[in-house]
């Protein structure tokens, strides 16, 4: 055990799907488990913060961290793992870009609290209680982690060595990533352990795409019966394929749904949402200003399409000060 590389798998603000994904590598999980000494995996085994604290700095070879950072506890755990680990792998869309919950950054903490604890139709809150970091209940003190104003991607809180995007990351890339670490065959720091190109590159529908895509009005997924073989954009359905890194195995294409971007920006692009909107505007086929406005009206949710998984790293969401 001792000489096996120590690996930690940990979640922050996460849905647990990323850990499910690790389990979903099925048989391979046993090899990984055999080749490594998993010192921390809350989903699977004893969770001992202070054991980690007791470790030497850098004693852990690799920390695989999933989930975003939204509260003080997340931040503490993240920082602790960074201190103890040689390598940190941001695992899954939440750790890499903030993920779906990152869309909360379009709202304030206050707004969220008011709805959840006051305005939701089923809420009954005569004492107008709001959860507090510290509260007294019949003389006893109960504490809660502090809920931050916004959601952060992992690299906005700690230094990250590698990224493995996806919601969740697919089994083949997980195995590749772990093997790369174990065999010490790692690309330069900061690399994303997935292909560099956009989804169109591997999308089976790319061949059916006409050379000139022009869209007069955008269709929403419930409005049309999408053809299972034709490029979504060619059908007027918004698909982030052109702007989003490939590697997901075209999971959504396979069930006849367009890409929503869980793999984040392609190599060299910081804000895939902005880039995507730029090209989306370009393929609007309009003769007049009115037609432009009409076409744009049919873009039901610019922010929700562009930043479904990446609002916290979007250009306009300010980084932490």
């Amino acid at each position, binding site marked *: 055990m001792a000489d096996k590389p120590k690996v930690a798998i940990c*979640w922050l*603000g*996460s*849905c*647990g*799907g*990323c850990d*499910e*994904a690790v*389990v*979903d590598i099925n048989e391979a*999980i046993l090899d990984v488990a055999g080749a490594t000494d998993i010192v921390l995996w*809350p*989903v*699977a*085994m*004893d*969770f001992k913060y202070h054991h980690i604290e007791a470790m030497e700095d850098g004693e852990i070879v690799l920390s695989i961290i999933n989930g975003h950072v939204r*509260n003080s*506890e997340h931040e503490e755990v993240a920082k602790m793992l960074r201190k103890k680990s040689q390598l940190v792998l941001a695992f899954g869309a939440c750790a890499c870009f903030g993920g779906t*919950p990152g*869309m*909360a950054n*379009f*709202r304030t903490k206050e707004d*969220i609290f008011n*709805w*959840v604890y006051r305005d*939701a*139709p*089923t*809420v*009954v809150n005569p004492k107008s*209680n709001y*959860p507090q970091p510290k*509260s007294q*209940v*019949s003389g*006893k003190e*109960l504490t*809660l982690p502090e*809920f931050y104003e916004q959601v952060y991607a992992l690299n906005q809180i700690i230094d990250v060595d590698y990224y493995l995007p996806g*919601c*969740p990351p*697919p089994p083949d890339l997980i195995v590749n990533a772990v093997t790369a670490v174990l065999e010490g065959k790692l690309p330069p720091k900061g690399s994303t352990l997935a292909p560099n190109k956009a989804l169109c590159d591997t999308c089976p529908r790319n061949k059916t795409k006409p050379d000139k895509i022009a869209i007069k009005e955008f269709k*929403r*997924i*419930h409005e049309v019966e999408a053809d*299972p073989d034709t490029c979504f954009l060619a059908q007027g359905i918004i698909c982030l394929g052109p702007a989003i890194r490939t590697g*997901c195995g075209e*999971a*959504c294409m*396979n*069930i006849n749904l367009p890409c*929503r971007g869980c793999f984040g920006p392609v190599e060299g692009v910081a804000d895939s949402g902005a880039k995507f909107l730029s090209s989306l505007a370009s393929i609007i086929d309009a003769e007049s200003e009115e037609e432009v406005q009409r076409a744009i009206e049919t873009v*039901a*949710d610019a*922010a*929700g399409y562009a930043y*479904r998984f990446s609002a916290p790293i979007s250009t306009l969401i300010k980084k932490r000060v």
Partner: protein
Amino acid sequence: MAKQITINPITRLEGHGKIEIFLDDDGNVDDAYWQVVELRGFERFCIGRPAEEMPRITPNICGVCPTPHNMASTKALDDLYSVEPTPAAKLVRQLHYNAFIIEDHYIHFYFLSAPDFVVGPDAPPAERNILGVISKVGLDIGKQVIDIRKRNREIIKLIGSKPPHPEGGLPGGVPRGITEEEREWIKATADDTVEFAQFTLKLFKDVVLANKKYLDLVLSDAYNLKTYYMGLVDENNKVNLYEGKLRVIDPNGNEYALFDPRDYIDYIGEWVEPWTYVRLTYLRKLGWSGLIEGEGTSIYRVAPLARLNVSDGMATPLAQKEYEEMYNTLGGKPAHHTLAFHWARLIEALQCAEDLQRIANDPLLTSKDLRNMNLKLKQVGVGCVEAARGTLIHHYETDDRGIITKANLIVATQHNAAPICLSVKKAAMGFVKGPEVEEGLLNMVEMAFRAYDPCLACATHCLPGHMPLTVNLRDRSSGEVIRTLERS
């Protein structure tokens, strides 16, 4: 000098949870709280999103039980657009749903519950995990569990893309159907699953019921909690996880309410406490009773045992037999035995497996008629399913373009939040006497909430799989840790 025991972390529905046990000066349990320490505010940032995207967004609420969110959301869209899914589409959805419940229930049983019973509640924790289970009952069972999970997740993948984050589901239908060649291996999977389900029940009865010590534990008062119960039933009041009416029975088993999930607001209230991020649900018309059981309580429970308690039986023949046997053993309905959740869970899994079989053999399954395009937006939609962990409700309101303006979600574990607090307190009082807590006893406490499979399941579904647990004994006044007791 009072002490405080902290069990942290234990759970994750929207994140972590922890248990605080307070000891009075004599070292007896004074009070216990189960806290949910995280919030992500989905209800809020869903505003402005197009409704049809919700089945793709809400599964991110929980990656361990994403399918119910995806399904509740999809059904909310049916309601929002006042449309019925085509018969084929409905079959595909139910196929997806059964496959999910099956793999979820078995993972919970084998990885989380079985260690307690098969290996023993007070056995050394190093053995009290799936490996321990395997060494007791044989390796091939471990393999079978993995195999059944894998194959049922293949079905989810087919329909929902990524099992931890399924995205399929559209108002009035599904984006993708099933082909004849896919039907073949789905059939095979269904048959094997039914067999496996029966085997598992037999295993449970052999190791638990046959063992007086365990049976007593199941029936003991520490694990008994008298509350209301809620769950979906079909038109014959049989268990149905995909659709139906919500039925509520009182602690004595009488029907308290039977209502369309659309009316949930009239029946369900959510109480806010400053010490937890989760909202505690209760029966609104009865008013918030606080954390009490029995007479005068307004707290209800959901999830497998609740579903069986509120129904008049199972919807499939094999499961029905098991249903009858369970209540005979527990001494009639309703059963308040918290640990019986495990048993109920296995009976449900059998019903899902039988239903999987029915669907796999239905000629309609492979029909290409997957979308009912006759959409009429009515700007309000409620979708309700029985998630593995209990009733799940998605309620959306939109503008005239179908853009979400309001979203209210009641997540399974919320219903059980208050009961869990009570069960934990009760178990703690039953087993924790003084600061010198023994590890095995802590596990007894743990078993109390593990039975609910609170979406900590999210946390504990998995490999070696025993509960992490650290107990801090703190001086109440100074808060400083006097002694740390931990299991390993």
